[in-house]
């Protein structure tokens, strides 16, 4: 608990300022735990978790062809499980453990809390409010679900052809060299971006840009699915995708409102923003379809929901509701073009558009947050807030994340290739990964 409060000054405005806990060291009184906060954070943790196994598995799985359904779900589930085990072994310590005294502290923490050393049910973790803490195990769990879903998101670009074993190797390496460092940089008080004042309420950079860019790099190295883009590869069940969309939206409130770390007005602001930015994203994607001469589609609705959610993630507690609505709309429209115009032009095969939606949407969100944060636009920034300066900080964080994630992903994928061969045989790809990799069929009606 050797970190300084960075932003404990004013009451609410300031508590919204930073995106992760300022550990209370100097607080005069012993910090107390409010069971209301604990209750909300336990709930938020589960909400984020809900996003993974039924949520993302259905969203992604429904978009895949039925012969690969189980493969998608199992890859997501098993990668998430692996992430949890790695998290308690050394991930938590790497991201949120005690600081190095050297400059390394900008990038990772020490391994002193590896295997959760020293943590008991009585350990506490700070929130943004001086004197208010939550049980550390809750914080460990909450952050664990973030690590788990982020690695699962990456898989969206490589499913339907990557080997299960390759996923497992990739996940372990990628978490270690990409996710833990970036989480530290953005959210830990000693982290590079955190110190630079980058705004990332709930993980726009750490989760979405990170996952989206990694997904792009991974699918470029892996190569296209056989038959892409000539052969029709229609989603096998948009019904399931829509269910997944709904569950992702519900769970995302744990992500965004949970990132307040307290059950307070800031969490409520994050919640309302997560409602309206998303609603706006959904409707504007459908509108973009109409404007471009197509029918407003169900998949468009779902895609707009996700684009809105992604964009509002860094802005959740850093925007007013109407800033959030605009942000959701803009992100949705740009993602629409990224997915329907840019992708076909560039010709890469990001199977489920992990880059087109999480990557692009995350960038719009990260940069847009600097704008909607302004009090002139209804945001919670201080009166003397300068958009320009913050914009530079945000862009720097985005660019560094892109570079870091690209290099890290390339390394992780090449190691996975060396160990496992990376890609299933052509025969298995034709027949489907469900039978070829798992020996099962998803459906036996």
């Amino acid at each position, binding site marked *: 608990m050797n970190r300084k409060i960075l932003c404990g000054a004013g009451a609410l405005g300031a508590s919204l300022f930073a995106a992760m806990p300022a550990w209370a060291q100097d607080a005069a009184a012993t910090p107390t735990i409010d069971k209301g906060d604990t209750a909300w954070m336990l709930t938020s943790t589960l909400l984020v978790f809900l996003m993974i196994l039924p949520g993302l598995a259905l969203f992604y799985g429904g978009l895949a062809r039925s012969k690969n359904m189980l493969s998608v779900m199992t890859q997501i589930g098993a990668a998430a499980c692996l992430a949890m085990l790695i998290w308690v072994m050394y991930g938590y310590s790497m991201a949120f453990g005690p600081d190095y005294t050297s400059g390394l502290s900008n990038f990772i923490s020490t391994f002193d809390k590896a295997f959760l050393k020293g943590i008991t049910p009585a350990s506490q973790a700070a929130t943004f409010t001086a004197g208010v803490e939550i049980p550390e195990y809750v914080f460990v769990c909450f952050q664990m679900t973030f690590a788990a879903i982020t690695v699962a998101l990456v898989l969206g670009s490589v499913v339907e052809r990557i080997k299960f074993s390759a996923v497992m190797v990739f996940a372990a390496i990628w978490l270690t060299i990409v996710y833990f460092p970036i989480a530290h940089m953005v959210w830990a008080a000693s982290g590079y971006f955190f110190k630079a004042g980058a705004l990332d309420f709930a993980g726009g950079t750490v989760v979405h840009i990170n996952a989206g860019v990694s997904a792009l790099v991974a699918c470029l190295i892996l190569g296209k699915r056989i038959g892409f883009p000539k052969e029709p590869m229609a*989603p096998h069940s948009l019904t399931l995708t829509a269910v997944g969309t709904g569950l992702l939206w519900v769970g995302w409130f744990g992500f965004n409102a949970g990132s307040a770390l307290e059950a307070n007005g800031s969490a409520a602001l994050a919640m309302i923003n997560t409602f309206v930015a998303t609603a706006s994203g959904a409707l504007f994607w459908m509108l973009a379809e109409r404007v471009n001469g197509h*029918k407003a589609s169900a998949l468009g609705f779902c895609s707009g929901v996700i684009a809105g959610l992604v964009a509002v993630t860094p802005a959740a507690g850093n925007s007013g509701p109407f800033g959030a609505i605009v942000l959701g709309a803009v992100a949705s429209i740009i993602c629409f073009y990224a997915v329907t115009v840019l992708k*076909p032009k560039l010709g890469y095969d990001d199977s489920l558009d992990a880059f087109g939606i999480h990557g692009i949407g995350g960038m719009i969100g990260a940069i847009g947050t600097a704008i909607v944060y302004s009090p002139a636009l209804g945001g919670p920034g201080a009166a003397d807030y300068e958009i320009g300066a913050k914009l530079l900080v945000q862009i720097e964080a985005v660019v560094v994340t892109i570079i870091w994630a690209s290099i890290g992903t390339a390394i992780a994928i090449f190691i996975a290739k060396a160990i496992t061969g990376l890609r299933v045989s052509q025969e298995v790809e034709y027949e489907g990964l469900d039978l070829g990799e798992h020996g099962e069929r998803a459906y036996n009606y």
Partner: protein
Amino acid sequence: MKFIIAIIKPFKLDEVREALGAIGVAGMTVTEVKGFGRQKGQTEIYRGAEYSTNMLPKVKIEVAAPDDLAPKIVETIQQVASTEAIGDGKIFVLDLASAVRIRTGESGDTAL
């Protein structure tokens, strides 16, 4: 005996079945199929990927019938299943060498 295969629009199935029942057809077998023909299908678009497969859902009816009933069956199906719009389907008639009722082992016309 004849083996009649008709490809029709799905929503016509009930009407056809009733009409055939009315002229004394006691049984038939129905399969869901996809049809490819002059009728153009809807274009489907998923995130910018356009598929206009021209494969449309149709229903296939198979009826085995005595020689004398066959023309009546063909005529009935043609009339009832027609909407006069493209894609109404086809009727094919093949010769049926023999027929057996599994339950009893009966064969020939009485098996139908």
